[in-house]
């Protein structure tokens, strides 16, 4: 079966973000960018399913600027077969991405879309669910375990209070949580090989999808700073301060 894995180019998770002084957004100039960590987990899971012989082809798709090609190359170096870049220089909201992915699904006819549960920039946690809705497919979000059997997938999900296992009929959308797997590093030979793998470059217009943002960002600000704290000398000091100063004991 064929699997489609959407990946997003985001600010590297180790970078401390800075808000622009004019409050128009976060400063992304000259900042290290990487593949969204949850998407790496999705690529890894797809590659593992291929290694098990369950999956025959992995198509990676990204919506973003020309540089998102690098993100696709990373996925190709991890073991994906080919890529599709839908190039857009403006930020596309989850609904727009879901509509584009729906069009790619119509073209590629995958049995599963495997993707990250959220991107660490927008923190929306919406695209996978939206795609499942648009396709009228079942969804299994926050997956920590995926087991394929015939035309069904048994997915263990991380929910508040514990774990839940659902069996979804394929085709389905599965979104990955952190504990699904440990993504591999791409080896140098595989990085070289990935350069020869094909990437199709398209535009939102090729799919007839309007990606105009529906939400208007009025401003982006720094979160409220906490007041500098004080050091305590010992247990008695701490308990006294919590009781008398802070009033929380």
């Amino acid at each position, binding site marked *: 079966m064929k699997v489609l894995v959407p990946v997003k180019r985001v600010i590297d998770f180790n970078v401390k973000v800075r808000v622009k002084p004019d409050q128009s957004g976060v400063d992304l100039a000259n900042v290290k960018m990487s593949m969204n960590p949850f998407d790496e987990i999705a690529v890894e899971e797809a590659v593992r399913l291929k290694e098990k012989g369950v999956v025959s082809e992995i198509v990676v798709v990204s919506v973003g600027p020309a540089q998102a090609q690098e993100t696709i190359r990373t996925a190709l170096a991890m073991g994906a077969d080919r890529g599709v870049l839908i190039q857009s220089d403006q930020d596309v909201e989850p609904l727009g991405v879901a509509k584009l992915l729906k069009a790619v699904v119509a073209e590629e006819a995958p049995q599963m879309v495997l993707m990250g549960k959220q991107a660490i920039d927008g923190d929306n946690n919406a695209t996978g*669910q939206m795609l499942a809705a648009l396709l009228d497919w079942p969804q299994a979000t926050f997956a920590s375990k995926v087991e394929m059997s015939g035309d069904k997938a048994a997915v263990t999900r991380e929910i508040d209070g514990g774990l839940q296992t659902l069996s979804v009929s394929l085709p389905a959308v599965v979104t990955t949580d952190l504990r699904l797997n440990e993504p591999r590093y791409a080896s140098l030979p595989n990085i070289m090989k990935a350069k020869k793998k094909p990437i199709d470059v398209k535009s939102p217009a090729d799919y007839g999808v309007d990606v105009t943002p529906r*939400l208007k960002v009025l401003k982006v600000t720094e979160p409220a700073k906490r007041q500098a704290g004080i050091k305590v000398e010992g247990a008695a000091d701490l308990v006294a301060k919590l009781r008398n100063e802070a009033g929380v004991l």
Partner: protein
Amino acid sequence: MAVLVIADHDNAHVRDTTHKTVTAAKALSNDVDVLILGQGAEAAAAQAAKIDGVRKVLVAESPALGKMIAEAVEAAVVPMMGGYDAVLTPATTAGKNFAPRVAAKLDVSQISDIVQVVDGTTFVRPIYAGNAMETVQSNEAKKVITVRTTAFKAAGEGGSAPVEKLAGGESAPKTAFVGEEMVKSDRPELGAAKIIVSGGRAMGSAEEFNKVLEPLADKLGAAVGASRAAVDAGYAPNDYQVGQTGKVVAPSLYIAIGISGAIQHLAGMKDSKVIVAINKDADAPIFQIADYGWVTDYKTAVPALMDELTKLGK
């Protein structure tokens, strides 16, 4: 303008997160209805009816809704949206699962994880793991919103809204529920606890984690939390995790023990009223946001703290 709140409940009880979401909803409209999706949820419905400011409570039940299967929730909610201008639900794992599905069916963008309602169309939400706050305006015909409940006060009790049963709940033909494995705990729920005692990788093992944190949590009537490092190392179960990828909490008192304070952890707890950090590394980032920092080894600090609490009669 009428607003629908999809309740967070376990059929027997309505969770505090629902009360908080009602507060956010009331900032949008005076006409707030609460929808209970579940199975055998009479008790939860009766409790929801008592939330102050609720116009009416609607109840839809089916086995699939009992497990909050996203397709069933979508099928139940979307047809109702003709009568509402907005739908709000707490940003729990269940809410995050079904709300975008509803939004896509309505062809609207979702506004995720709001922490403030500025006015009927404008909302504030954290992005980049809480390192920036985004103010967004939505002119969508229908608004689908998930609410970061720690940012809102709980609506009071004292209402007496009528409860209305909706006909035949929805099924989810493409999804089957297989099983559940819930973590059993007698302690307060992490999201609702007034005090949280949280441990990190410094604990070194699951035995040490429990040995150090449980007695202290019991003494304080606190919930136990963990950093992602502690969870990934297997010292604590997944749902103890506080952070961007776990739970977002805002208790009165958060005690971080052996936690360095990575960005992803801070995103989950930096809105706590008072933060205490116990860490032997004086340069740990956690000290930059802690109200009270104690540079010491937790191995001696925690027993000393226990003794002091005993003196207070805790």
